[in-house]
């Protein structure tokens, strides 16, 4: 068995993994990226639409272009990339972590490292997760699988399409399927507001005249062998109106019903997960409860934009490098999701450093106020023109904001929206 040792190993070669590895390398630590697909870039490689990179590169790029630009930065570094390599076992209990990677090219490799960065990304929720009853015919795909089939494999999974869920991948696929000559008959959303970004509603649905059914539950998939239709039922004042159910004929159903961080390896490593994000509970260094195991990107919490993923991953990589040098936060405060806040990541802040948090709200509101309390004292209040659950909110907290917490026993930072 091939046996290799690095200072650090990053699991996942998407945007997050590459960005974290670059920081570790820059700080002088040897680093290996392990990627299960045959190429680096993660899910970006199949996202051939544009809209990536406005923050990171100040220009609008396609997914593959964005990935390529990050990958170019790997050239000339000491980073080793293993592609077609799946981490199947991770033992992070000791100072030296052990990873067993299964590869088509080199058999099983054992990698050892002092630091592991989790950057495995997320996966799509599927039909079973949202428990749509009905037949089980061919023609039901997650939007991401359909995107892969169309954009990389060159196959059209179906001609008459209904998309369940208004997540971004579903919206993007509504436009993509229209471009290749398919008819998208509807996008169906259970909530009273769309789950995807506003710009995608406009550019992918409105511009193509695709109807969006808000407050509609998908109650049945019909078709013995191949999909023949989808039954949807309006929700009015909280009541599912089965008497008003109707069926939209189609041969294909694409599901865009949410993403879940891929934390099977994290669980194997003993990492504690936050039930609100399904991602690790991370401290101010983006380190999990397992010393030396860091997390970033969509495996930590599902992000809206890859630009934010890269920004967060860069911090994780830099923190991991500092940690390798023996640096530790002097004092931390717990971060608590207060009223109308679904979650904040990470779960702790460093009282003596600049911190950046991402959070999501539970509500849709215009003229909202984001409030930060430290030990019940308001230290920051920010006006927001518009907030909605589908748009992540960034919060920056520096030592000045947190000074009340210094010296206090079990200090708490609470974020709330009103």
């Amino acid at each position, binding site marked *: *068995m091939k046996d290799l040792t690095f200072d650090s190993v990053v699991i996942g070669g998407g945007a997050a993994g590459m960005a974290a590895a670059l920081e570790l390398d820059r700080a002088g630590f040897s680093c290996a990226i392990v990627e*299960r697909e045959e190429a680096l870039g993660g899910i970006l490689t199949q996202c051939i639409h544009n809209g990536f990179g406005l923050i990171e590169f100040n220009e609008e790029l396609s997914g593959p272009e964005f990935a390529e630009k990050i990958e170019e930065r790997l050239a000339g570094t000491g980073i080793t990339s293993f592609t*077609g390599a*799946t981490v*199947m*076992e991770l033992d992070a209990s000791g100072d030296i972590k052990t990873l*067993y990677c*299964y*590869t*088509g*090219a*080199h*058999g*099983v490799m*054992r990698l050892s490292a002092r630091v592991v960065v989790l950057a495995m990304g997320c*996966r*799509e929720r*599927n*039909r*079973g*997760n949202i*428990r749509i*009853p*009905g*037949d*089980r*015919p*061919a*023609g039901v*795909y*997650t939007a*991401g*699988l359909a995107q*892969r*089939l*169309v954009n*990389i*494999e*060159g*196959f*059209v*999974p*179906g*001609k008459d399409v209904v998309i369940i869920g208004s997540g971004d991948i579903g919206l993007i696929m509504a436009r993509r399927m229209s471009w*290749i000559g398919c008819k998208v008959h509807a996008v169906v959303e259970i909530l009273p507001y769309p789950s995807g970004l506003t710009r995608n509603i406009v550019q992918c649905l409105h511009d193509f005249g695709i109807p969006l059914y808000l407050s509609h539950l998908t*109650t*049945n998939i*019909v078709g*013995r*062998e*191949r999909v023949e239709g989808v039954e949807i039922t309006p929700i009015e004042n909280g009541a599912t109106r089965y008497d008003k159910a109707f069926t939209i004929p189609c*041969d*294909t159903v694409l599901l865009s019903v949410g993403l879940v961080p891929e934390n*099977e390896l994290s*669980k194997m490593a003993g990492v504690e997960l936050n039930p609100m994000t399904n991602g690790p509970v991370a401290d101010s260094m983006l380190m999990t409860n397992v010393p030396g195991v860091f997390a970033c990107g969509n495996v930590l919490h599902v992000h809206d934009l890859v630009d934010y993923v890269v920004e967060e991953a860069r911090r994780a990589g830099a923190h991991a490098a500092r940690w390798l040098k023996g640096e530790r936060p002097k004092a931390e405060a717990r971060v608590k999701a207060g009223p109308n806040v679904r979650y904040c990541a990470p779960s702790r802040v460093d009282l003596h450093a600049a911190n950046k948090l991402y959070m999501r709200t539970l509500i849709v509101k215009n003229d909202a106020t984001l409030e930060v309390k430290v030990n019940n004292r308001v230290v920051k209040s920010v006006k927001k023109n518009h907030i909605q659950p589908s748009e992540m909110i960034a919060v920056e907290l520096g030592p000045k904001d947190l000074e009340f917490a210094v010296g206090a026993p079990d200090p708490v930072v609470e974020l709330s929206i009103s």
Partner: protein
Amino acid sequence: MKTGSNRYDVCVIGAGVCGANIARRLSAYELDVALVDKEADVSFGTSKANSGIVHGGFHHNKKYLKARLELQGMMMFDRLQQELDFPFKRCGIVVAALHEDEMRAIEQLYMQGVDNGVIGIEMCSRERMLELEPKLNPDTLGGLWVPGGGIVEPYRFVFALVESARKNGVEIMTGFKVEHAARAGDEWTVRAADGRVVKARYVVNAAGLYADEVSRAFGAEEFEIKPRKGEYYLLDRLTKAKPERVIFPVPTSVSKGMLVIPTVEGTVLIGPTAEAVDDKADLATTREQLEKILSSARAMVPSVSEYDVITSFAGLRPTLEEDFYIEPSAKAPALIQVAGIQSPGLTASPAIGEYVKDLLKKEGLRLSEKSDYDPFVGKRPHVKDLTPYEVDKLAQADPAYANMICRCEKVSEAEIVQAIRAGHTTLDGIKYFTRAQMGRCQGGFCTYKIIKIIMRETGLSWDEITKNGDGSRILKDAL
């Protein structure tokens, strides 16, 4: 092994768990046997969607044939597993009583079990029940413990039986929908919808849900198989609700009730419902029935959560009458009827194979043992069950063992290729054979990889890739 001829000694119609057991049993003798099925792959009917239980032998009175075959069949699984290497485990069965009046039924089941000769059957106190199965509702009042009961992956059992039968000379024909049969001399001519013809001296009708139609095609008994639907939820292997034992409620007069089943492969199955339907192709799940499953499962195992659901599905029981109907036809010569095989059909199936072999003998079929009969099929390594060192060793001979295709269920490229070479060329066939697409992502990441491997290995083109047969094409166009 037959070559070129379409004449057989026995034609078994239906490659579900009964037909497969019968064909494999007959393959031990100097006989030419054909096993035909209307679906694209074997085990695609009732045998693919059921609870996968090896029952304990206490549910039915031994005056019934089905009880006697169940008791005999359940004892045969250990040896079959040694020969055929399919997933099977005697994890034991508990029957939990949650109400005072259910304890009386428990007592009756216990007496019946003792009368049937069930080994190790035990009436249990609440404490004993919770010790045997800590996931049980703490309000459990008591129950029954049957250590010999177990779990099996039903389709893998059928696949292994069919592989063994094939190895011993049985010819398998899929996509063979029996449409017409005529007898001339001492031979049946069986014609399929696509025009293929099989000639056989004896025929076994093990057509499951369609046994009535096959009987009619032979001019034999008129009866009607009524489908009774059972819906299930499958829970992720990481669920907190995974029990150690199969958990049964106290049965009702019509059904054994909804169970919580730890599958051999580590996931958890809850169900089935029991609902009469008219249509033999109606495998749709329904909101109402699925709700029932969750509440019934939670009554027994409170930690069952809807968030752990990875998929739902339904199967159809081929119901006919109270008992199995396994007899030589009184109307059509040299035809054995194997019909109405609902629960405990899977458990009984090895004994059904034996029983039907004996019936054929009584009907005049000469049985002479084959000198070269080999009951064993080669063991196939599953990456999921191996250490990294073992995988590395395998990969030195075949690198595809370390190329992971399905990461949820840990299936390598080598295993997918083996499934295809064993004749499973649909996405569902590969799923049942390897478990790829069966895990928490339900094929979200591996489907495209499997499509490409099927195309590479079989030479099929994109428009010939199906989920489970002709009408279920996966792709509609190529760019």
